[in-house]
């Protein structure tokens, strides 16, 4: 039998594809997610520049509860303030409540989750029991309880929502950590002698990012709804603030009289939450993390 001669490949056997580009290409295929991202971007612009046509505190007692008209596109509220302006200005507040709350929850939850997942043992049991207990009080009730202790108001709403977000993140990140921990490349790094800290920071944490990003996005929606629900039950933002939930909560007293006060903030919340959820879906499909 004749020997086959060895030779190196003559063609380009290797092509660098930027992972970001690949992600972008996949993501752009998800139309609903792209539209949602656009909408969220639009909200962020609103939040930053606040292009409100009227001063949100300008009262006009002769013009209260007027229906949407050419002057006030979304009508006026019980003080004669422009609803559209309040919604636009409220974007910053409503978004920042959600962003802060979710960020805090994600931060604490991820740390707990990664520690629980990586170290296991008693520490894990303790952390997970703690989460179970937090979980065994239905989310909103927990927030209500927390607000009851520390009092209503925006800051406290943020605290409450972040606390009840913790177990969600802890679970997601833990299970993600657990599965990554089992991967061969982690074992490979351990066999090299990489320290725990480096392993956690360099190898495991980046691996949990897809799960973290997706959960984060999804939680944004939940946080906005929770904040609104707290307002509805009277535990939320003070109505002096143009918070959407607070507006909705006030608006419901005028349900038969001035439906626009209930409708527009409601739609705003709805579309924003929907956008975050659809974006989350899109990201999940693209990043493909294993969530449980």
């Amino acid at each position, binding site marked *: 039998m004749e020997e086959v001669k060895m030779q190196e490949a003559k063609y380009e056997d290797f092509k660098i594809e930027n992972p970001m580009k690949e992600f972008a290409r996949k993501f752009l295929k998800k139309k*609903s997610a792209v539209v949602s991202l656009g909408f969220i971007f639009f909200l962020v612009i609103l939040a930053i520049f606040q292009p409100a046509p009227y001063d949100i505190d300008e009262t006009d007692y002769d013009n209260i509860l007027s229906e949407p008209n050419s002057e006030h596109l979304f009508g006026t509220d019980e003080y004669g303030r422009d609803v559209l302006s309040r919604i636009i200005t409220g974007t910053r507040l409503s978004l920042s409540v959600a962003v802060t709350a979710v960020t805090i929850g994600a931060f604490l939850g991820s740390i707990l989750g990664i520690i629980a997942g990586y170290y296991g043992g008693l520490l894990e049991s303790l952390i997970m*029991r703690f989460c*179970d*207990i937090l*979980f*065994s*009080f*239905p*989310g*909103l*009730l927990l927030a*209500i*309880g927390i607000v*009851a*202790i520390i*009092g209503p108001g925006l800051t406290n709403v943020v605290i409450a929502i972040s606390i009840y977000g913790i177990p969600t993140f802890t679970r997601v990140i833990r299970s993600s950590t657990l599965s990554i921990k089992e991967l061969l490349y982690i074992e490979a790094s351990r066999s090299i002698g990489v320290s725990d800290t480096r392993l956690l920071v360099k190898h495991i944490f980046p691996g949990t990012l897809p799960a973290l990003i997706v959960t984060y996005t999804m939680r944004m*929606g939940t946080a906005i*709804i929770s904040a*609104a*629900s707290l307002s*509805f*039950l009277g535990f939320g933002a003070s109505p002096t603030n143009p918070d959407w*939930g607070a507006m*909705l909560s006030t608006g*419901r007293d005028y*349900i038969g009289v001035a439906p626009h006060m*209930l409708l527009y903030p*409601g739609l705003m*919340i*709805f*579309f924003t*939450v*929907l956008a975050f*959820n*659809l974006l989350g*879906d899109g990201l999940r499909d693209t990043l493909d993390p294993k969530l*449980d």
Partner: protein
Amino acid sequence: MKQYVLKRLLNIIPIMIVVSIIIFMFIHLIPGDPARIIAGQKATLEEIEIMREQLGLNDPYIVQYKNFMLGILTGDWGNSLKTGLPVWEVIIPRMKPTLILAIFSIVWSVIAGISIGVISAINRGKLIDYIVMVGASSGISLPLFWLGLMLMQIFSVKLGWFPTTGIDSLSSYVLPSITLGAGITAMIARYTRSSMIEILKENYIRTSRAKGLSEFIVINKHALRNSLVDVITIVGLQFGFLLAGSVLVETVFAIPGLGRLLIDSILFRDYTVVQTVLLIFTFQFIIINLIVDVLYGVANPKIRYQ
């Protein structure tokens, strides 16, 4: 399996003790003096003092906790501070509406959620998938109370199909359970869909097609059975959502249920009721988790026969 259930049941005891301590601390962390709230705005200091003494609120926390636990062990859960009635007399009539509401909601959500999820999964990428999934996402994007109020305006006030509020007949539960179930349906639908999509890629689905089975059987017998195993766990998780949502729905539809009772009792600082309701919630949650685990085991032969 019996052994397992037994072990899990025994496990409940330490959990409940820890939870009871947490609940107790939680309750006493809340500012607000129940004696003053109960006595009312116009009460005199003397009245309030007598009240505090009677309620044992002047005792050290340790003693109060001890009494609370002793009470539980001897079956005396105390009287509602608000109404003066024994706690269970206050709570038991409130359980039924919440339970009915929860069962109605979960049943229709499971049926609707799974069907929607399956339809969507087998039509993946088509228009119907798109519509259904955006619809499902809408389900979780609606503030519950908003949905409830809107439904009431349309179906009770305008159309007069269902009673506006109350629990007088089963038809009273229709709108509340739709409201409460909307989010859960959406959640189950999304989960079923993604689980189905994963499962439809599995080798054994290819095998069943290679056997010549019709698509209907492949989906409903082979794929769905497997995805149900996953869906069970997610349904279990929804119970937490259900309880939280019931607070809002009960408020909107004036349903005298546990959720509403809890909120009112927290506001009134009706400690005895609050702690009992919270203990019930926790217990319920643990039991539901146990049931879900057992169901999961039953549905999943891998676990059943280990």
